[in-house]
């Protein structure tokens, strides 16, 4: 009985690994030091597993740099370098000014 349960458990674990895994989400923070110049931004060297974490780190960084009144940030989902356009393109982009 115990052996059967163990076998079922292993099979379920393996199947979940093969078919049930969700797509990994990676958020990248882009901090714009001035609201007027949207061409200049600093990209976070690491990615975040959630949008909340990306927002939190971006806000903290802006506060650390004492840029609260002039800076804003964007969080990009699963950003990759687009060879055709020669720029980084994200699946989705949320700005700190978005509601």
């Amino acid at each position: 009985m115990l052996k059967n349960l163990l076998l079922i458990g292993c099979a379920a674990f393996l199947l979940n690994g093969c078919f049930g895994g969700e797509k990994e989400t990676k958020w990248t923070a882009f901090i714009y030091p001035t609201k007027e110049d949207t061409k200049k931004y600093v990209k976070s060297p690491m990615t975040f597993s959630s949008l909340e974490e990306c927002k939190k780190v971006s806000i903290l960084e802006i506060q650390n740099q004492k840029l609260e009144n002039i800076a804003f940030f964007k969080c990009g989902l699963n950003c990759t370098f687009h060879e055709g356009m020669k720029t980084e393109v994200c699946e989705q982009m949320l700005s700190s000014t978005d509601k």
Partner: protein
Amino acid sequence: MNELKYLNVCYNSKENDEKFHELISTYTNNVFKYNNQDELIDLINNEEIHLVITKYNFELLKQIRVLNNQIQIIAFLDKINHTHLIESLEIEYVKFIQELNCVNEFIYILKDCVKNIDSQKSNIRKLKNNFIYDIYNKTLFKNNKIISLTKRESLFLGLLIKEYNRAISYEEINKEIWNNTMTQDALRSLVKEIRKKTYKELIINISGIGYRIDL
């Protein structure tokens, strides 16, 4: 640059400065400025506008397309995302640019637009099995999802699709994609990878000559 001379271009004077006006006026004598959407609509209705340069706004672009189905659009925005690229498939003739002040890139785009005006062919190529290729933005889609391509895959597929009516010789591929360092194995592997990401019949081998695309 004579090909740009007779181009009727319009842009929003609030979105671009005098420096931009000077730049664009160097290449064409027919530059129209507008201050708001109503003025742009008037211009499109009353002048034979070939090219609109505007900040990306999906609703505005849709409106432009309803009025004229051939106008080329250079849309700039600070961060392009998948939604923008997917939306532009619906509108057609939209070339995205992140920085208008990169003169060389801007002129290259203008030339591309002129070529397209002459050929009257859409920048959107519908391939088989629900694949779509956007020539302007060098992007491959399947079922409204972007297919990621490596640098060489992107260059090779772009070249084949741009020159869809002829075979591209091995010599040309060697020069354009590998800067004269191509090996047969590398080319075979590149074709295999693109076929894997798309479908086998997309790229046809012309024995002893090179490759061509099956559109």
